[in-house]
Structure formats: C-alpha cells, structure tokens
C-alpha cells in the first residue's frame, strides 16, 4: 500500500456569508478503506462531501487525491480521476432505462464491447438484471438508490463517495444496501455519509464524527458510541 493516502484534506474551510460550514478539516483515507461520516444535521457533512466532489469550491484549504491537488476543480474532473459520486437525492437519467444509465457510466471508461459486458456484470452484482428495461424515472425510491449505486460502480472507480445511501429505505432494503456496500468495499474504497446509526453499525470500520463543521473524533463504531462528548452532542439528545 503506497504511503500517500488515497484522499486527504488539509485544513479545509467553507464560509457561506456568515455561516462557517467546515472549519480546518484535516481528513485522511487510505486505499480500500471504508469510512463512515456521521454527525447531527447541520454539522457540515454534506458541505464537506460537496467540497470533495468539486460541487462546492472551498473558501480555503486543499483536497488531494493520491497526492494530486483537485481543490475546486471542474465538477467532471474528480470522476475522470476515479471518484464515483452518489448524491443525496438520487440523480439519474430518468427518461432512460436502467440498462442505458449503467451503460453510459461504463462506456466512458471501457471500449464498446467491454462496456456491454461490464454493464451486464454490474447489474448482476447489484441484482437489477430483471429490471434492466424499465425506465428509471418510474421506479420506486429504494430501487432508484440501487440503480445509482450500479451506475457509480460500473465505472470501476477507486474511491466511491455515498451521500445517505440508505435514506428513505425500509429496514429490509437497508439490510440489503449494507451487504451491497460491504461487497463493493472488497474492491473499492468508500466514504459513506449517513446519520442512521443502525446502518452505520452494520457496515462501519472507522467512523468520523462531525460537529459544527469540525471533526470531533475518529474511532471504531463501538468506541464512538460510548464516547461521552459524542453521546452528549449527538446521541444524548436522541437517547433522552
């Protein structure tokens, strides 16, 4: 494993007018790692996520991917470097079929013939082969989340960023999503932003807790659960 971290941020800041959304965030992720980011609403999780994907240009600080500075680059550059991005609200080609959505992602990376094969395998892997002809716009929310997952992994990115992949899902669907993410982690590093603690417990190895735009602590899930400050700030309110 090369010593250079897969993804690193150096005192990343973001100010919207008066709001200081992210404060001097230093974050490191190594190859193949699965990291979860949790924190109450408004803790800066999504802002941090958008700074990584280039959707938001940071006020100051750096974002490095394999040592290469990608701070505030054009939004399509991270994807070309091998970062797969799934946004909070499923964003798909609604007018096109599931097959076409996944094929489009594959065809950017692979030549024509290989792309067809990758598309078939990816749909197989995510279990959507039976739905490949249906139009994504007309599908249920849970299914659309999985289609988006398939679209992201079809391009075989080395790092996948997922923003609340389990949002709006039934327990049984959450269970299946967790298995999927673990299976994906066999070949791809992942960062999952989520605030559903039961889901976190199913998949997490390391957890980073955000609070008011800064990293409060980074630890294994159980340790995070029992950390008094985290409880007071985050779990305490919920538990009471």
């Amino acid at each position, binding site marked *: 494993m090369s010593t250079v971290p897969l993804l690193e941020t150096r005192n990343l800041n973001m100010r919207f007018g008066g709001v200081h959304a992210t404060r001097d965030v230093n974050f490191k992720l190594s190859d193949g790692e699965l990291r979860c980011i949790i924190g109450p609403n408004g803790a800066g999780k999504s802002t941090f996520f958008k700074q990584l994907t280039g959707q938001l240009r940071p006020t100051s600080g750096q974002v490095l991917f394999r040592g290469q500075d990608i701070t505030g680059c054009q939004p399509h550059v991270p*994807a070309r470097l091998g970062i797969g*991005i799934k946004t909070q609200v499923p*964003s798909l080609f609604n007018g*096109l079929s599931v097959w076409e959505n996944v094929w489009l992602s594959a065809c950017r990376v692979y030549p024509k013939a290989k792309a067809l094969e990758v598309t078939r395998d990816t749909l197989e892997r995510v279990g959507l082969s039976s739905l490949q002809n249906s139009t994504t716009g007309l599908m249920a929310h849970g299914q659309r989340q999985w289609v988006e997952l398939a679209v992201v992994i079809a391009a075989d990115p080395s790092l996948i960023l997922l923003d609340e992949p389990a949002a709006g899902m039934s327990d049984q669907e959450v269970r299946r999503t967790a298995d999927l993410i673990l299976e994906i982690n066999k070949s791809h590093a992942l960062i999952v932003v989520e605030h559903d603690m039961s889901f976190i417990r199913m998949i997490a190895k390391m957890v980073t807790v955000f609070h008011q735009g800064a990293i409060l602590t980074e630890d294994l899930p159980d340790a995070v659960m029992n950390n008094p400050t985290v409880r007071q700030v985050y779990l305490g309110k919920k538990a009471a």
Partner: protein
Amino acid sequence: MTAFRDSPWSAVLVMLLGVMATLAIPKWVDDFALIQITIYVVMAILAISQAFIWGFSGILCFGQASFFGLGAYTYALSVINMGESTLPVLLAIALPGLFALLLGYFMFYGRLSDVYMGVITLTVSLIFFNSVNSTAGPEWRIGNAPLGGFNGIPSIPSINYPGNPEDTLDPLAFFYLSAFSLIAIYGGLRWLISSRIGHVIVAIKENEQRATLLGFDARAFKLFAFTLGGCIAGLAGCFFANWGSFTSPTIFSLAQSAQIIVWVIVGGLGTLVGPIIGCMAIQWLTTQIGTQQTFNSNLVLGVILVVFVLLVPKGIIPSLGDVLQKLFGKKVTKGEEA
C-alpha cells in the same frame, strides 16, 4: 423498445422513403412545384438543425436564424468575389460553424440557464439583423460584392459543378442536391444519436449533473452539438441564397426565428422527422395564405402555435406515435420518444 434500440430501423425506413420521394417527385410535378418543394427541403434542413440542438441536446436556441443568415451571406459574398462556387459552399458551412463555436463557448462556459440562453441567442440574431440592415451605403462592400443593407444582395450566382464555374446547376439538379443533402444529414444525425457521443449528449439533456458526476464534461459535448447545428444551418442558408439567388437582412429577423421554433413545436420536439414534416406543412400553409386574402398570415401562425402548445404539446409525430400505440396496443414501456 427504448428510445435507442428502435432508432436504426425507423431511420433506415425514413431514409428509404426520402430517396424514393426524391426520385419520384421530379417525374409527376411541373417545374414550378419542383422549385416550391426545393425551398421546403432547404427549410427542412434548417428545421433539422434546430430539432437536433433543441430536441436532442436540450439547448434552447432562439437565434438559429443567425447561422442560417450567416451561411447565406457568406456564400453570396464569397461566390460573387470568387466566381467558382465550391469553396464558397464550404465557407458557408465553416464560418457559421466557427461562429457557433465562439458563441457556444461564450454561453456554455458561463453557467447560463436555458431562459438566459434563449434570450442571448435571440439578441444575437437581432444584432445581426440591425447591423446588416444598416450596410446600404456604397462603402459597405467586401471585394466587389456590396452588402446592400436593407435591399440585400440580388442575383447571386448559383452553385456550379465543381471545376467549371460556367456549368451551374439547373433547378432539377439543385433539387436533387438539396434533397439528398437533407437525407444524408438526417441519416448522419440519426447515426450520431445512436453512437456513444450521441448517447452522452442525450444523457446530458436528461440530467446534466449526473452526466458531469460520471466524468463527462457537459459543456464540451453541448458545444460540439451547438457547433454542428450551426454548420447545418449554415448549409441551409447557402442553399436558400442559391434557391432565390437573393438574400436580405430579413433572413435574420425575429419572424424567421419564430418560424423555425414553430416548425419544431408543431412537428414534434425530440424527433427529427417531426420538424421536417412540420416545416413543410407550415411553409405550404403560409404560401397558400399569401394567395388568399381571407386570413392574415400572422393570425393563422399564431393560432397554430397556441393550439399546439396547449393541446398537442408533443407535436404531430409523437402524438401520432401515441395514437398508433393505443390503437395497436403494443406493450411498450416507452419513456421518451426516439
């Protein structure tokens, strides 16, 4: 059958019909009607350029008349100066294309929303109209071709067989040239749409953000589509200047832009065949109105546009597609029309 998979068959079918029509028409039509049909075909090429950039690439361009006019003027000015028409025809494609590239870069790399793009393209065509309209003075000339301002450039030499400037195309040969160009462009666009680039362009229209997150630089693809649309419209302009051997600033006018939009809306946004049929139908209707004094042409065009936007928003062809589908009850989970 989703939008992509059924396109090869319908494309081949339409092109076959086109070729048959092109060969049959000159046989059973007198030469006046042939000249009339030629202008319909030329305008159909313009309609296709608008259908491609708006229907498939999602670029709301209200100023397609600028490239159309630029093509006509470039051809007129260069053929008067050069005599031989082959290079002027190429120029009439390249220059509008280049202008589309510059204007497209100016707009797409500026994060403009659709509405602003519509207004800017409309304003650009007005800039062309006002500027060319005020070049009537003798000092406005390029080489020995006066720009002519409001009265335009009369008696423009027509396209000649490459090599000898004397042997110019007669109306029949010009009809064949325009018709086969239309068919070739139609085929080319359908091939492009079913190719990888085409898929990406359509995907960008569907959801630009997702396409960007997949690593496609949406701006570059849109610029490519916009430039291609500019070239096709330029060629249509060149044929238009050739057809009437005349061109004037009214080619850039608001009314010309409005007509192009009406053709695509009436014909069917999101298809290529629709606007061709819409264009020919409207052209025929406005000419008929001209010979009858009963209705005012603006009134009829206005009613058509309002009725179609309210009642038949998808245009003739897609609505026909729906009707046929309901009649024959084909079990098709059809998302967007091809």
